[in-house]
């Protein structure tokens, strides 16, 4: 449950950052187009909602990380090292969990290598992404860790249930 929650929170963190960056870039781009004379004028709604959502998720994630480190330090019987807890996605509750974490990370790493290859290649098919699909670079980049995390979570759950 803790792992699922952490993965969801981390994924939301990436998505909210992508939304925040997109929100900023689309406005910046309009100014750039106006400055270069491509458009005569534009109207835009500016809101700080995306930034607030990002900050709330970031703070939640930070608090979760701190709680986990404190709990780990109190529970010395499990002999976990501090570096094992640098990423809260890593389960080091016992030696089997550590072993499964390693295997799930290997699956996830393999997936990220292949997926990044596809994402990078996909830019070839959207040559005007910077004009028509400004959101594409942000969301495709954010999708790399998000899908990687999902693969990690699924692999971990399957291996753990064996």
């Amino acid at each position: 449950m803790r792992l699922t929650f952490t993965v969801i929170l981390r994924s939301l963190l990436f998505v909210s950052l992508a939304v925040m960056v997109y929100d900023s870039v689309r406005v910046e781009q309009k100014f750039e187009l106006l400055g270069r004379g491509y458009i005569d004028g534009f109207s835009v709604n500016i809101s700080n909602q995306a930034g607030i959502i990002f900050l709330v998720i970031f703070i939640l994630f930070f608090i979760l990380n701190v709680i986990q480190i404190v709990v780990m330090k109190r529970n010395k019987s499990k002999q976990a090292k501090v570096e094992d807890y640098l990423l809260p996605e890593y389960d080091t509750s016992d030696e089997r969990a550590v072993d499964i974490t390693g295997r799930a990370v290997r699956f996830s790493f393999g997936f990220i290598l292949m997926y990044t290859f596809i994402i990078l290649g996909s830019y070839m098919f959207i040559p005007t992404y910077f004009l028509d699909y400004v959101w594409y670079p942000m969301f495709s980049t954010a999708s790399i860790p998000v899908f990687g995390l999902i693969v990690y979570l699924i692999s971990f759950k399957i291996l753990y249930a064996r």
Partner: protein
Amino acid sequence: MLVNRVKELRARFNLTQGELAKRIGVTRQTIVSLEKGSYIPSLLLAMNIAEVFGEPIESIFYKEGDDE
């Protein structure tokens, strides 16, 4: 393949999976996997289990086909 007598010994010592897990410092799911034979423990964990049951490691964990 490595087989073990953890389930048999646990029953003999009248321990639940949770109690054994607590005594050797692992989660109950690890004991479940051990008993199913789907997880091979580290030497340290095997020693901890042997200590709980008061038997030598080789009498608890052995290769399939070997005499105990």
